[in-house]
């Protein structure tokens, strides 16, 4: 019985390795490709016996990845901060002071989650052109922030309702603190777990966004990484090595952050979706 059990466990571990290997395949292909010469027609499965590091330098400058990284960092960071400030602030009265108005506002905001804002892209594009904000980082920030506000409010409101004790706020109120003061000094620090979830979810999705970016950020100097990569891919479809080098550099930062903080990422993203 014991040895049979051990054999079964070894078999299952073998299956786990097989699954892991299968999921690594596309990354492995990307890596081998990224080091090869354009003229190297050997199988993509075989790692080259040389490393053409110039691929990375060329891809970096030709795809304008430096500018693109800067833009992605600015857009992601500001959107995430705005989401945390505006989302937490909005959720507090919606979760705490359930007047008829607040209930209606809450359900209105939550119901927007079902309809992806992308379905209204055409009229949104018109609006952006009309207010003269095409090709600005500002519009990317505003669009991304708005798109994730409903989920953010949902997460914060749920957390405030279920975990933040009312007594603390009431004590502070009796001590004469104002509503905003109570919120920032007492409630907000208690919201750290959701704030982490919101930060992770919004950073990942805004960093990776392509659909908003391709509509609103077409100039070279405001392009995010995804837009820069799409443009670069279009120009270099015949030189897959160069594209693979660009793709590898593009996914590296988020992958490194993920590997260091994977526990928080997995909890955060799953936590957000479980509640969402």
């Amino acid at each position, binding site marked *: 019985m014991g040895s049979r059990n051990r054999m079964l*466990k070894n078999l*299952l*571990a073998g*299956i*786990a390795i097989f699954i*892991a290997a299968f*999921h690594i*395949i*596309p*990354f492995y292909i*990307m890596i081998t490709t990224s080091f090869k010469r354009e003229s190297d*027609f050997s*199988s*993509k*499965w075989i790692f080259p016996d040389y490393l053409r590091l110039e691929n990375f330098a060329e891809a970096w400058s030709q795809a304008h990845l430096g500018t693109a990284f800067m833009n992605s960092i600015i857009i992601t960071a500001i959107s995430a901060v705005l989401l945390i400030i*505006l989302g937490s602030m*909005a959720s*507090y*009265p919606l979760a705490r*002071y359930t007047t008829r108005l607040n209930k209606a*506002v809450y359900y209105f*905001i939550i119901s*927007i989650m*079902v*309809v*992806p804002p992308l*379905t209204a892209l*055409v*009229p*949104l594009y*018109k609006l952006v052109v009309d207010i003269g904000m095409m090709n600005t980082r500002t519009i990317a920030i505003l669009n991304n922030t*708005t*798109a994730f506000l409903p989920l953010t409010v949902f997460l914060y409101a749920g957390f405030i309702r279920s975990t933040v004790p*009312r007594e603390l706020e*009431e004590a502070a109120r*009796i001590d004469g603190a104002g509503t905003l003061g109570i*919120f920032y000094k007492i409630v907000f620090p208690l919201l750290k777990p959701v704030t982490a979830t919101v930060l992770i979810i919004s950073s990942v999705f805004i*960093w*990776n966004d*392509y*659909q908003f970016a391709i509509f609103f950020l077409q100039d070279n100097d405001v392009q995010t990484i*995804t837009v820069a*990569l799409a443009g670069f*891919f279009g120009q270099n479809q*015949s030189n*897959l090595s160069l594209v*693979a080098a660009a793709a590898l550099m593009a*996914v590296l930062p*988020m*992958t490194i952050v*993920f*590997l260091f903080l*994977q526990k928080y*990422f*997995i909890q955060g*993203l*799953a936590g957000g*979706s*479980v509640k*969402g």
Partner: protein
Amino acid sequence: MSQLERKISYTTSKSLKPKIRLKNSLWFMYLPALLLIFTFIVYPFFNGVKLSFTNWNGFSQDYEWVGLEQYKRMLTDPTTWLVVKNTLIYGLGSTLLQNIVGLLYALLLNKKIRFKSVTRIIVYLPVIISPLIMGYIWYFFFAYQGGALNDILLLLGFDKINALANPNMNVWIIVFVNTFQFVGIAMIIFLAGLQSISNEYYEAARIDGASSFQQFKKITLPLLAPSITINIVLNTIGGLKLFDVIFALTGGGPGNASQSMSTYMYDLYFQQQNAAYAATQGILMVFIILILSLSALVYFKSKEVEA
């Protein structure tokens, strides 16, 4: 129960100090959020409804009212139905695959075996990568010229295939890539669900002589119902609005063969300069997503009650 408590604390806090009466709704705290939502979601949405009754080309300042012209065109346009069919395949196909594969992975990696943690991380990794770039990464695999798949086929003595240009294949390749990317989320949600099931149920079932399969069917599956609901709603919405992967792998082609509603809207707007028609397609998309995700929610919520 908590409602009563809340009512009590509400009234006591009121009577304790009249100054802290909660007379207003503190609306100024959610005003900025509401303004953003109205400006960038609600207003464009209704403007889209308005534009669907015009012939706006997307660039000029003038347009005319054309009544139901765009809707008539949409319903008689064979491309609409092709695109709706593809969108449903992307939405429902990915949902089915992600749930089945995600559940199998979760069942395996919930066991106390070696390599379970590292496998979980590797399966999960694509979730944090841009779907567009994930599309390009798979392009290196499926590409006709120098793709990794053709390298194997040639080695095994088969002919090269142009999988991404084959309309019977590329739609399913897109489903596969989307599933590959997001199966990690389904797996994690199922793992969380499995870990919340108390061991006592299984012990009791074992004492009663239930087989592993019976335990799975009578205990695991019903108690996973909430996880299944979440996964189905999430994956359906994600699959129905698929854009980036299609853009990266096939560009919607050949012709319109792998176009989804999102990529078709993009194409109508920028390539065909028919913004009003693109807006009309957007409204159809809202309807489809609403109907499917709400019916999934209602159906699986009712199952949860039974369980």
